[in-house]
């Protein structure tokens, strides 16, 4: 039976655009502008889903994005919120939480055994016997959770954008619209966000039987659209509040992070259900839900119904129902004093029976609880929350609209750090202490009459303008007049229970009473024990009632109970939105393309991508590395070292700076020579090492290991600022390429490309030259990190690839071979060089790595010196030593970090270990106790599987270089 009404003023649907879709296998038609729920309701479908725990049939509750029992899936997405998601052509939908369909759900029996399943039953029931728990766990896990995860979900790129404004206004109801217009008039840049498809908030549905307010709404929206200062995000929710006024606004397409100078929260209120037996039957709904159905979607909520109320709003709902052609059998007012205003008078004129001081004791279900056939109405004692069943009246009806009160939609206010106090005049938490730049307006701020809400918006806007330094007149708002919009305790006890507080999780009044009895009588504990507010709606219709119940149980004022912590997100936000686009920033040297083409296996070193080795078909990783190493030992190899940190230290105080920063001396260093540098931190811990080459009196060229480059440069900048020396630091890490040519034939290859003499005699260790290769100016430094004969060639990065190719060509007759970082680590190990960060850790001091020669303690100052003076007084506890295993060692290969054991105790650990093709045995570095460090001493390494490898302390290099 169609429930579609004739065209309503201001409705959101386009009746000329029909949309066909299927739900639970049956085809239906809706209009463009319908939500899934409204289209189904219009088609006469009342049962939209099954509840989470008891699988009770459920219909519409709020039509405001917390109808958690009306979640559907379209096969791709799950848990689609039918009450707010727009209907689109060809949707094929089914309810998520059923076993065999929403009408014939096989799990519906659970409702009948519900007394066996009190809150927390699974904590208690299934832990004994322990052997059965895995079985029960499977059953529980199957029952728990909503929807099915789609593992074939396509990658949809949801953009994350940034936007900016003076004032962000969240919620475009009357107060939000008014605030936006006032702020815009004060020349402020406004962003106005509303989660509904159209602006207007309650103006779009709360009509009390006439459409006068539609004209006001049209005018407000027209002004907003016309204002160049207002940018509107409709169908978008403010998902959370983050520091310094950053609010992510979520739309279907992505997230916009809005940074505002001030925020006005005008999010309104959530209507709260009064709690009575069977208040969850399809047909029972919030008054505002009935109004939304009528005015937004032109759908009749039910044919004949009653309104149960505890405020003035219920009477407005009744008028709207009558106007839509619903027969209103009665208005049941839970308050003893009732309501006296124009709307009540009008209803009486229209012949509506009003039961003052009555409650709905229960709703009467039809077969299978798929709807309702009537309501039992009884006199109600507000002080005890009990109904006088003796005087029960049964009213035949197929629907109940409920209006007993509201809870502020204050999640974002709480997140911003606001203080809230309980206002007894309106029985609501309202803000009483605001963080800087946070403002509230409208019903969330405790302002209820339409006129006052418009003024409150203007008031908030003027306070924002004044906060942002504009001179504006203050606006004042009258305090609340008339009856309270919320009932302090809208509950009706019933021996059979099934009076639901939380529709997400099927939590009844007795569950709270039981929780309190078990000692969970603090709101945060009660929340976790009962799971109230932990369902997908996050307590939007249940938290306030839970607080009221706990206050009653503990006989405390509501304010003393407090609220649970509000956390982002305001609505569930899809993971795809949070993920957004993939950003994987990475640094490449200008030779990267060549490496890739040559089969390089890349590893990440800090932000850089570097070749670890060059894959050769038919060879294992280990074999490849050993071959690359042998090429360097026997002839010549080259490695792209462009990732190395490179810093120029210039100026009159350059040497002085280095002497403070590093442990060595540099004042007397000759131009054209290089020296080792060792960096400690203030604790005397080894941080990094490298080479300082003096290129001119006032210019040093420094290298820093790849992974430390950024951090060391930062420290240089910091200390320079503290020391105030006359020095300029220039980071040329990216601007210069570096190619290291190493091996006995290195000079032979290099000599083919340069005019200067690079022979051993003319270009000894520790010297540097500036020359040209193919017309490109290069700096060449003799270094011996990977081979006795090695040249580090620095060139402008744009030329690195050409020079790389030139070197390969020049070295062809020598069998030159590129090698990667894994090979480099083996090569330096063979020479016995330790690497900071690899062979040292965050506690290693230079004495432990036998770096005394690098320490110039006679200098007046260097970073870490004072700490070393203290450390030097104490006995050493460990020393890094080079070791080898026996040539014929056949046991398990020890690994980095295997422990050095003596008499059952730990003495140290292996830091580097590898088979050395040059030494033809396993070589490594390890920390041992000082008494174990003597040359020739044998110590034990415990392997992964518990074996013992005998290691002998030796001299380096490990082979005859």
């Amino acid at each position, binding site marked *: 039976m169609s429930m579609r009404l004739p065209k309503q003023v201001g409705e959101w649907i386009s009746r000329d655009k029909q949309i066909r879709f299927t739900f639970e296998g049956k085809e239906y038609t809706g209009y463009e502008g319908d939500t899934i729920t409204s289209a189904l309701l219009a088609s006469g479908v009342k049962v939209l889903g099954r509840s989470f725990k008891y699988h009770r049939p459920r219909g519409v509750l709020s039509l405001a994005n917390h109808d958690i029992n009306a979640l559907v899936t379209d096969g791709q997405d799950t848990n689609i919120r039918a009450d707010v998601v727009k209907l689109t052509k060809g949707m094929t939908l089914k309810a998520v939480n059923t076993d065999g369909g929403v009408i014939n759900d096989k799990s519906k029996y659970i409702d009948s055994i519900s007394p066996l399943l009190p809150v927390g039953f699974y904590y208690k029931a299934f832990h004994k016997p322990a052997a059965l728990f895995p079985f029960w766990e499977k059953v529980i896990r199957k029952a728990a959770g909503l929807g099915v995860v789609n593992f074939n979900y396509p990658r949809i790129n949801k953009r994350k954008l940034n936007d900016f404004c003076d004032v962000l206004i969240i919620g475009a109801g009357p107060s939000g619209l008014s605030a936006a217009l006032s702020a815009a008039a004060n020349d402020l840049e406004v962003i106005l966000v509303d989660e509904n498809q159209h602006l207007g908030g309650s103006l779009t549905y709360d009509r009390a039987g006439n459409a006068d307010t539609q004209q006001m709404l049209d005018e407000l929206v027209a002004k907003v659209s016309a204002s160049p200062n207002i940018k509107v995000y409709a169908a978008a929710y403010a998902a959370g509040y983050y520091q310094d006024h950053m609010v992510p606004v979520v739309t279907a397409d992505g997230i916009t992070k809005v940074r505002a100078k001030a925020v006005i929260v005008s999010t309104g209120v959530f209507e709260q259900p009064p709690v009575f037996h069977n208040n969850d039957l399809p047909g029972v709904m919030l008054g505002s839900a009935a109004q939304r159905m009528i005015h937004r979607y032109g759908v009749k909520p039910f044919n004949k119904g009653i309104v149960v109320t505890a405020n003035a709003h219920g009477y407005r709902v009744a008028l709207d129902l009558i106007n839509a052609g619903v027969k209103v059998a009665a208005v049941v007012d839970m308050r003893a004093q009732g309501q006296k205003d124009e709307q009540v008078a009008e209803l009486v004129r229209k012949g509506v029976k009003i039961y003052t001081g009555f409650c709905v004791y229960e709703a009467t279900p039809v077969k299978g609880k798929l709807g309702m056939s009537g309501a039992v109405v009884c006199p109600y004692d507000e002080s005890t929350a009990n109904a006088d069943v003796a005087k029960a009246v049964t009213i035949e009806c197929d629907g109940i609209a409920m209006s007993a009160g509201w809870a502020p939609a204050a999640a974002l206010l709480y997140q911003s750090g606001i203080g809230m106090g309980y206002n007894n005049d309106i029985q609501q938490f309202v803000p009483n202490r605001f963080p800087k730049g946070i403002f509230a307006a409208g019903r969330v701020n405790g302002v209820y009459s339409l006129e006052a809400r418009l003024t409150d918006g203007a008031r908030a806007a003027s306070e924002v303008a004044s906060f942002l330094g504009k001179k504006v007149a203050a606006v004042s708002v009258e305090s609340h007049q008339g009856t309270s919009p919320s009932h302090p305790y809208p509950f009706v006890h019933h021996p059979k229970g099934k009076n639901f507080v939380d529709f997400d999780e099927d939590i009844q009044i007795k569950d709270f009473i039981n929780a309190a009895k078990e000692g969970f009588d603090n709101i945060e504990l009660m929340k976790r024990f009962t799971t109230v507010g932990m369902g997908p709606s996050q307590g939007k219709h249940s938290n306030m009632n839970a607080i009221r119940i706990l206050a009653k149980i503990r006989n405390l004022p509501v304010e003393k109970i407090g609220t649970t912590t509000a956390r982002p997100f305001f609505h569930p936000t899809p993971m795809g939105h949070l993920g957004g686009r993939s950003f994987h920033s990475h640094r490449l040297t200008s030779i990267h393309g060549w490496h890739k083409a040559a089969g390089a296996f890349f590893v990440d070193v800090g932000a850089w991508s570097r070749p670890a080795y060059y894959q050769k078909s038919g060879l294992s990783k280990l074999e490849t590395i050993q071959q690359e190493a042998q090429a360097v030992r026997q002839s010549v190899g080259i490695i792209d070292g462009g990732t190395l940190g490179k810093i120029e230290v210039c100026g009159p105080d350059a040497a002085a700076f280095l002497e403070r920063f590093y442990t060595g001396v540099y004042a007397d260093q000759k131009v054209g020579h290089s020296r080792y540098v060792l960096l400690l931190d203030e604790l005397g811990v080894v941080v990094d090492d490298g080479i300082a080459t003096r290129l001119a009196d006032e210019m040093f060229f420094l290298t820093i290991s790849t992974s430390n480059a950024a951090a060391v440069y930062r420290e240089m900048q910091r200390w320079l600022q503290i020391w*105030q020396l006359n020095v300029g630091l220039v980071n040329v890490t990216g601007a210069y390429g570096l190619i290291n040519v190493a091996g006995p034939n290195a000079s032979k290859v290099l000599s083919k490309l340069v005019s200067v003499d690079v022979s051993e005699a003319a270009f000894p260790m520790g010297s540097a030259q500036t020359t040209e290769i193919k017309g490109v100016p290069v700096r060449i430094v003799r270094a011996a990190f990977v081979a006795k004969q090695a040249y580090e060639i620095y060139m402008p990065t744009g030329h690195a690839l050409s020079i790389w190719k030139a070197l390969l060509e020049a070295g062809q007759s020598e069998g030159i071979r590129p090698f990667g970082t894994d090979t480099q680590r083996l090569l330096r190990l063979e020479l016995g060089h330790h690497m900071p960060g690899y062979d040292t850790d965050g506690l290693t001091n230079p004495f432990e790595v036998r770096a005394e020669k690098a320490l110039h303690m006679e200098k007046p*100052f260097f970073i870490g010196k004072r700490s070393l003076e*203290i450390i030097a007084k104490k006995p050493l506890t460990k020393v890094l030593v080079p070791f080898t295993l026996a040539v014929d060692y056949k046991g398990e290969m020890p690994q980095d970090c295997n422990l050095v054991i003596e008499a059952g105790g730990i003495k140290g650990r292996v830091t580097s270990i590898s088979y050395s093709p040059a030494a033809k045995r396993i070589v490594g570095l390890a920390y041992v106790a000082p008494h174990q460090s003597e040359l020739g001493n044998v110590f034990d390494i415990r392997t992964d599987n518990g074996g013992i490898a005998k290691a002998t302390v030796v001299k380096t290099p490990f082979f005859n270089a």
Partner: protein
Amino acid sequence: MKLLNCPMNGTRPLSEFLFGGEFREMPNPDTSSDLEWASYVHYRDNAPGVKKEWWYHSPSGTWFIAERNTLSDEVLATYLYGKAPDATKTTKPRAKKEQSE
């Protein structure tokens, strides 16, 4: 995301900054006792309150000092080292101080 005001580049989101630890005045290494020095390098006063901290603006490479209330996470002032806005708070450059002591 929190905002921080770089004295050279203006107000930027926290993602552009690196934290450089609490700023501590180095005792004179030549005259301080081992205990004084050890407490300088090892001990941190973690009691909440207004702290001087090092912050680094990555894109521009600017180190500066932020005075931050670690209880409220409110930044009271930011300035380049040695250029505190209030003369009484000015921290003398290290080099000069060493000479004077």
